[in-house]
């Protein structure tokens, strides 16, 4: 009994001294090992899902089953092919396209069991009408109206094919067909730049496509048709096609301009506005509660704490009605002023309480006012707390979905990016269609928060006051 009391009451340093150095080292080693494992475990889970989502956002079909980690968008050989095709199509290896003067050479190799004749596939540049969304409304030019497709030749070859059942190898004949897709010279003058050049190659069922300049986007009709959404993507156009679509397919129907940049700007404006208001309110209130002695201070502090326990949904309708009566609906001001600063006030108050009173008293002796002390002495030394508050407020405002959704409904250009992302859903009969677009949009929307963290992370760990006192 005495022993236990003694042990628990003993300072940790004394306990450590009693352990032999080797045992201590072993203990430290294991503690370190466990911590390390836990951190790696958490990071794997967090980062793993993040990475998988990012990889999926590059795919044509993020829902594909089984989930592949090797596909054209992450294959450098495909990037080179796509860049080359982009250059041939529109002289742009990065974003590709099909423009006057474009002349694309495209080849496809087919194989069939020995004895089966390999016939030339039926090749065509189809008219791919987008089925939904703004793309369906705004697509004006189709490659089919400008493309001249000719088969320029074919070459015979052979390849070794392994029977998956028996494991035996066999030599199968192959035939490589080469096509030229040229921008019709008759329509070249003033001809448009076309983003996509689709291609279909249909072959009989016994005949398989084994290689092509660029892998097909998908096989359709149970392998009968190899289908390319775009044979002139350019390297970036291939990898970041969904990202490009986020920009092009959120266009304003009247002007044709992309709304996405506007949404990012609105979000930034609202987030900065909220950060500014949060900082002003939180530092003033925090300082008053930490330093000023006045009647009801405890009650006010209690109320601030209490406000943190009220869910936003409880005050939702009354807040909404107030904004409506003030005529602030559909303005960024409504979202900027929906503030919940309880936790920020608390954080600032705690920080101000640790600030050496002597420095403030010295300033007071020198004739500084309370506000002067706060703005000239305390706040400049409270940068870590201010920045942590700013980052938290920025992140909360940037990610806020609920308030922008209910307070800003129209016009579409006034939305924030989080609400704007909703319009990337392509629905057919109420079902979600286009996950690639949603994922890509979500990734673009996290960039500002990421940048903010990378820029300011050192402020979160460093503390100038503690450094100054050393």
């Amino acid at each position, binding site marked *: 009994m005495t022993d236990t009391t003694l042990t628990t009451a003993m300072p940790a340093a004394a306990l450590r001294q009693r352990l032999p150095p080797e045992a201590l080292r072993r203990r430290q080693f294991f503690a370190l090992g466990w911590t390390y494992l836990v951190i790696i475990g958490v990071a794997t889970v967090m980062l793993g899902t993040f990475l998988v989502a990012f990889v999926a956002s590059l795919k044509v079909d993020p829902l594909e089953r089984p989930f592949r980690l090797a596909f054209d968008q992450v294959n450098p050989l495909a990037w080179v092919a796509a860049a080359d095709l982009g250059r041939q199509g529109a002289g742009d290896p990065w974003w590709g396209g099909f423009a006057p003067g474009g002349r694309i050479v495209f080849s496809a190799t087919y194989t069939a069991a020995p004895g089966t004749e390999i016939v030339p596939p039926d090749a065509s540049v189809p008219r791919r009408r987008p089925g*939904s969304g703004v793309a369906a409304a705004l697509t004006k030019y189709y490659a089919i109206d400008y493309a001249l497709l000719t088969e320029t030749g074919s070459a015979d070859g052979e390849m070794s094919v392994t029977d998956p059942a028996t494991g035996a190898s066999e030599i199968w004949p192959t035939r490589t067909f080469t096509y030229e897709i040229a921008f019709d010279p008759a329509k070249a003058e003033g001809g448009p730049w076309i983003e996509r050049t*689709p291609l279909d190659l249909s072959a009989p069922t016994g005949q398989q496509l084994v290689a092509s300049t660029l892998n097909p986007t998908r096989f359709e009709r149970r392998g009968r048709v190899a289908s390319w959404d775009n044979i002139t993507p350019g390297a970036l156009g291939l990898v970041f096609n969904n990202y490009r679509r986020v920009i092009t397919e959120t266009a304003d129907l009247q002007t044709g301009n992309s709304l996405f940049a506007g949404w990012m700007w609105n979000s930034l404006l609202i987030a900065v506005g909220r950060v500014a208001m949060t900082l002003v309110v939180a530092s003033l209130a925090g300082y008053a509660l930490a330093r000023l002695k006045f009647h009801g201070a405890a009650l006010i502090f209690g109320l601030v704490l209490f406000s943190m326990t009220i869910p936003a949904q409880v005050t939702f309708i009354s807040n909404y009605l107030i904004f409506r009566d003030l005529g602030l609906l559909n303005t960024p001001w409504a979202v900027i002023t929906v503030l919940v600063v309880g936790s920020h006030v608390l954080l600032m108050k705690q920080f101000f309480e640790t600030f050496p009173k002597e420095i403030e008293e010295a300033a007071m002796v020198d004739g500084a006012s309370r506000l002067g002390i706060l703005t000239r002495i305390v706040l400049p030394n409270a940068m870590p707390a201010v920045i942590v508050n700013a980052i938290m407020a920025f992140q909360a405002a940037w990610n806020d979905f609920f308030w922008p959704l209910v307070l800003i*409904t129209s016009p579409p250009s006034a939305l924030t990016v989080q609400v704007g992302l909703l319009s990337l*859903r392509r*629905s057919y009969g109420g079902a979600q269609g286009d996950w690639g677009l949603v994922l890509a949009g979500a990734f673009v929307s996290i960039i500002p928060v990421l940048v903010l963290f990378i820029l300011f992370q050192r402020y979160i760990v460093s503390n100038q006051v503690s450094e100054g006192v050393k």
Partner: protein
Amino acid sequence: MHKTKILLAGLSLLALTSAASAVDVRISGWGGAEVALVNGLITDVLAEDLKAADINVVYEPVDGDFSQFITNALSAGTAPDLFYTDIFWSRAAFGTGKVEPTTADTSPFAPNLIDAFTYDGKVMALPKDFNTLALQYNKDIFDDAGVAYPTDDETWATLQDKLVAIHAKLPDVNGLCVVPDYARFAAFALGSGWEPFNAEGKTVLDGNFKRAFAWYTGLVPAGAAVAAADVGEGWTGGCFTKELTAVAVEGAWIIGGIRDGAPNLNWGTARIPKDPESGQAGNLIFTVGWTVNADSAVKDAAQKVAELLTSEKAQQWVLEQGLALPSRSALVDNPWLQGDTPEQTVNRVVFAGLSDGNVEPFFFGDLGGAWMEPINTALNSVLTGEADVDTALAAAQAKFDGMAAQKQ
């Protein structure tokens, strides 16, 4: 400086006069395939008529939950002048008193659609189009499996046999993706002769309903279907466009999904199969109308835009885009509908769905979508193996009884 002032004054005067000459009417509908349709109508098909009427239409499509958007916008006073109303949640909008009855002549429209939008004796929306369910099938899959295509006279049993045969021959393909959703299951539930509301206005899940329910949920263990969620899809059309299944049960909206996901698909459409016992097929009517906002400052212009958007000329064009069927009775004999392309076929069959044996609008009175919830939960619990048919239906019936009791 002086010159700038004059210039500015001149410009603002110009802006004022141009604003005075054309009335701005804000209209709103949902996104997806509708964007191209409405945009095409206002910028192309109806451009001249709108100009003649001195109306400038500002179109704001809303992707996401439209009913929530419109409820929010109506209560905020920021709602568009003219907007979509789905009969599904129409009562929630009509009941607010923020909706203006239509002033147009409703006689050229299909009477059952007009009935669906009648509230308190007044027609509150001009139906713009409608859809029903049909059975789409992938011809290549049926060919590869050596199974005959579904016909218009299929019964549940014969369809199931075909789907089982396909899965047996092509193990990587399933027959149908089943979804725990009344909006698809109703095609079979109604075919059994069951009615959503009996003479007393109550929902009774009777023997007919149970027969349909057991057949639909039994498709998975029978090897004729797979649950859509199990192959990572949310709708029967998603499985269909990826060639994971041989058939789908959707309306003409599937065309948008096919254009985006499988532009070369070789497909056809047949009527919803019949219940072998009742000998009837069932179907749902989905319809959407244009509704004028009662608080709009330009109500007359909005009524005019609604008339133009549902005019014969507009509907003819929409029909030829292949995405929705016209609500005007005169257009039913349109020659376009007699064509043989897959898109024309699906529209023709969807149109024929109106004359299936037991057809109900996709509408559940004041209860709205909440009415479907017990059935969807029951479907889900059986499809996921959490409950058997009897337990799931008993739970659903208890919920319906609770709803009826609450109403009283």
